[in-house]
């Protein structure tokens, strides 16, 4: 199928981000001591299983980032293809069935009927008021009441089996690779993994995959024939919406942080390091910015943007590019309003650091301010930056939801967790309750944020040289606690 690739603004930034990460990885791989500390990230079981989950989210997000316009069937007079105005992503193609199978309105997860009664005509012309059959969900069933459950079980079961098969081959491949790498017999490697004595916690990774793969398998088998997570008010598949929301969440979480970081780092460290009037100006700036309610500021900025978009319809070729620009603008304005917290933290930490003796020693060598900031202060505040960024990540994903509710969030045509929750919120009061949309958004967001937090935790522990001994201590302590208790009993015996 001929396509016309499209690179939206946020796509470009994501590509840039990916390239930056790849360059960083390359840099780390070339430097043994950096590699050694990053390897320790791999030693944390929770970190690695979080990373496995994150990779799933990242893959989804990246697949959803490759945009293009498919060619339509007819061509122009001189034979050139005409491209659709609809912008699709690779993810859209992969999940075509759930994208195009749109029902009339609400339906529960895995249901074969609509969620509300409605009046329709039977083939013989008599009007009935009943739960209508879904157009796609369970449409292949003759008698849903009897066949639905066994059909779901058999399809789901097949999916789980496929998942397990993939898992087994992955595990076998991994073991083979490991045994080749460590020049060890296949059997011994397997035993090592089983006993959790490998350097990397492959056991945890495999365990995570063992949960994840069969789940994906089952969902993949069921999705073409059912709405696994139900449908929303206009009959769109919730699973599709959830998958599409991942990219928006990642974009908001990462791009905003990266827009905010230069402000926070530069201004915070400058204020703490130079003190004096620089400090006064920067403090004045962020105190002022902080005292304006950020929602107002964001609302005003987004409104301006909207007016601009509406008065210049000609510069946007597609709806998607319009929505995308609005998303980017939201990221920027969120970034501009949210650097103050991190900036204040960094200012305080820098003020503490600049009095430390190694900074004084650097001054005594006549090291330039710029080098002191980049070599001495920046690496020693990185853990704060990392924690703040991850904390903000979840906060920003939530902020997007709030802003979408107020009506100044992402473009209404763009699917995001915010718009999903906003739509679901209205239905919570409905009797019977429509719970699945909210639950799906909650579940996906929770998993995403939690795995990001756990991974950041592992990174922080590994990268902070002062933390390393402490981590070992707590782990050893919990292991030896039982023996300690046993020997404690001994003490109380008469000696």
């Amino acid at each position, binding site marked *: 199928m001929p396509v016309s690739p499209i690179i939206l603004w946020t796509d470009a930034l994501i590509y840039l981000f990916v390239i930056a990460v790849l360059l960083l990885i390359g840099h780390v791989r070339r430097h043994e001591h950096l590699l050694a500390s990053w390897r320790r990230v791999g030693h944390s079981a929770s970190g690695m299983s979080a990373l496995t989950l994150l990779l799933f989210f990242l893959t989804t997000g990246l697949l959803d980032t490759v945009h293009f316009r498919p060619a339509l069937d007819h061509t122009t007079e001189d034979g050139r293809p005409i491209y659709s105005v609809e912008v699709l992503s690779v993810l859209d193609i992969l999940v075509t069935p759930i994208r195009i199978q749109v029902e009339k309105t609400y339906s529960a997860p895995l249901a074969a009927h609509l969620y509300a009664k409605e009046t329709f005509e039977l083939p013989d012309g008599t009007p009935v008021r009943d739960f209508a059959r879904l157009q796609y969900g369970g449409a292949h069933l003759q008698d849903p009441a009897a066949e639905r459950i066994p059909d779901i079980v058999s399809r789901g079961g097949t999916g789980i089996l496929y998942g397990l098969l993939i898992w087994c081959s992955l595990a076998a491949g991994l073991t083979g690779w490991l045994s080749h790498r460590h020049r060890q017999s296949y059997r011994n490697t397997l035993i090592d993994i089983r006993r959790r004595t490998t350097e990397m916690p492959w056991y945890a990774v495999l365990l995570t995959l063992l949960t994840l793969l069969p789940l994906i398998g089952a969902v993949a088998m069921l999705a073409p024939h059912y709405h696994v997570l139900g449908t929303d008010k206009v009959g769109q598949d919730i699973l599709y919406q959830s998958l599409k929301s991942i990219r928006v969440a990642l974009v908001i979480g990462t791009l905003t942080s990266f827009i905010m970081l230069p402000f926070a780092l530069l201004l915070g460290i400058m204020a703490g390091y130079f003190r004096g009037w620089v400090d006064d100006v920067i403090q004045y700036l962020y105190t002022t910015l902080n005292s304006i309610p950020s929602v107002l500021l964001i609302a005003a900025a987004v409104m301006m943007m909207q007016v601009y978009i509406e008065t210049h319809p000609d510069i946007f070729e597609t709806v998607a590019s319009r929505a995308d620009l609005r998303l980017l603008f939201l990221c920027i304005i969120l970034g501009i309003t949210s650097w103050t917290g991190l900036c204040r933290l960094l200012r305080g930490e820098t003020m503490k650091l600049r009095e430390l003796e190694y900074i*004084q020693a650097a001054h005594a060598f006549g090291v330039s301010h710029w080098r002191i900031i980049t*070599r001495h202060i920046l690496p020693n505040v990185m853990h704060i930056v990392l924690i703040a960024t991850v904390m903000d990540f979840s906060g920003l994903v939530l902020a997007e939801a709030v802003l979408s509710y107020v009506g100044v969030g992402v473009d209404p045509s763009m699917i995001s967790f915010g718009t999903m929750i906003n739509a679901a919120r209205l239905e919570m009061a409905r009797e019977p309750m429509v719970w699945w949309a909210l639950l799906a958004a909650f579940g996906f967001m929770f998993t995403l944020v939690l795995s990001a937090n756990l991974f950041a935790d592992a990174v922080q522990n590994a990268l902070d040289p*002062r933390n390393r001994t402490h981590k*070992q201590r707590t782990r050893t302590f919990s292991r030896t606690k039982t023996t300690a208790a046993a020997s404690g009993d001994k003490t109380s015996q008469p000696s």
Partner: protein
Amino acid sequence: MSALLEIEQLKTVLYTGDAPVRAVDGVSLAIAPGETFALLGESGCGKSMTALSIMRLLPDAGEIVAGTIRIGGIDLLRLPETGMRTIRGKRIGMIFQEPMLSLNPVMTIAEQIEEVLKRHLHLSKTAAQQRIRELLEHVGIPDAAHRMHEYPFQFSGGMKQRAMIAMALAGEPELLIADEPTTALDVTIQAQVLELMRQIQKRNHMAILLITHDLGVVAEMAQRVAVMYAGEIVEMASRDDFFNRPAHPYSQQLFASLPNKQKRDRALAVIQGNVPSLAQQFTGCRFADRCNQALPHCRDTIPQWHTTGDNHQVRCHLFAPESANHRQTPRTSQLSETLPASRVAEPAMLLQVNELAVHFPIRTGLLKRVTGHVKAVDGVSFNISTGKTLALVGESGCGKTTIGKSILQLIRPTHGSVRFRNQELITIQRGQLRQLRSQFQIIFQDPYASLNPRMRIFEILEEGMNALHDSRSRNLSAHHQDGELSKTQQIDMLLQRVGLPAEVKWRFPHEFSGGQRQRIAIARALAVNPELLVCDEPTSALDVSVQAQILNLLKSLQKNLGLAFLFITHNIAVVEYLADEVAVMYLGRIVEHGHIDEVMNNPKHPYTQALLSSVPKITAEPVHAGMILKGDLPSPAAPPTGCHFHPRCPKAMPVCREKYPLASIISNTHTTHCHLYPQEQHS
């Protein structure tokens, strides 16, 4: 004599790191009522863990695994936690090292003492208030009735430690555990606190378990001494026996590694290496690896207790009856090793400091108007010649460190002049200053804060070289090619010079001990080939044996490289060992300045006299400080009128209140600022 506290075979384990650490490994001791028992040892020997085990206040990772602790016949280890609470504070009181950290900053002193009284004595409100006042008067807090309702931040360091002692005494304990009670205090304050503890002990007939690393404090306070090494007690003796005839090689070597005047021309005896890790299982004597008299079987046989005299026990194979002939006289040959003669060079004037002043403005109010100045340094002049050491002595807060930093232009002086090789540093341009920076460097007090934890040793050492190189290459780019050593080789040489193997350059600072870090800090300063090193209390955070290593290193560097030192310290013994000249500072001004022998043997200024007599003496006979200063250092924001020292001076005259004394010249090199001596006619 029935013992008040009896500890038998106490074993405490800390579950940290990979293997459990045996912090206390079979300690047995007994303390009689009214006795002062000193537990002496270097850091990491398990002294504090012993104290915390007695109080049963071990950290979460700690566990008492064996032994008994009895106080007056009660086995503390078999008491339930609620029973323990009636012991703590009531029968055993404890004071800690840091008075600043052991008082709650949001409660008044009276409230904090009242907590103890309420718990143990059930006094009525008024009776309790009465008792608190008595207690505070007892520990020598003036105007106690009024000051008891103040908060800890309104008390000075010495006052806080007094308040801590009052709190520990509130329950009238029979045993007071003092864990390094004076380590954080200045010598003059230390003398006050030690005197107070002696008085109280006499009055209340209370036993004291004194935990310290300071031989001087032990000499002044203790009746019996136990030396602790690597989790066990290696020697136990009466005070006189211990100071006259130290038996264990460790004790002997500790004495030998103390700096003093007699050892000026020699290298100090050094106890090689560090305290071994307590995580291992010992098969022989724990000290064998560092011992200078080790016998072959010291490494594979655990020594038993041997008695050498009345109540003098030692855990060493040398004292076993069968190996008596191996015993050498203490003071072994290692000591007499002298340092090579110094390079003969004509001493030239290196640094001239003239009327240097550093005032920090105090800003108050909305508009940050300057309402006063903290005169940290107020008109200080001195000179340093090449290859010489000037020691700057004084209590904390007198402006010593500020002088050091303002010479390096880390703090901009308010006025005065600092000339380095006749080059004025205060008015110099930033770029020119950077080129000069390689010639004077600084070593800091805290080896843990002076190295960037995120940089490897290689990068730390390289940084100074690079900064220097940038400025030098601009001038001498031609010189650059002719066979300069590669950076790696230079760094290897530096590490070798400070006594570290070259492989360590790829490690991070947290992998090193305090002494090793201080060596790295010295190597960093040496990387740029300075002529002047400002040493800001370089050994005060280190143990005695490690201090000896660093002092030896500094001394040999001075001999070999011809470095000049500005040595900032409060440790008089180090001054006597290292310095050529001494300047004594009080509240931002130098009160006495002279050659080391003149000032130490014949101090003129009453403050110098008091300072020298406050230093605990390590002598065979117990000597108590002759002259104990009253009160604390006044605030440099509002120094007393006239002579700054007059409120504390025992010889104050009316004229002292009126004007600051001019210099009195005692000899060519010896000057002091005191009205007791005839003064120069013009300033």
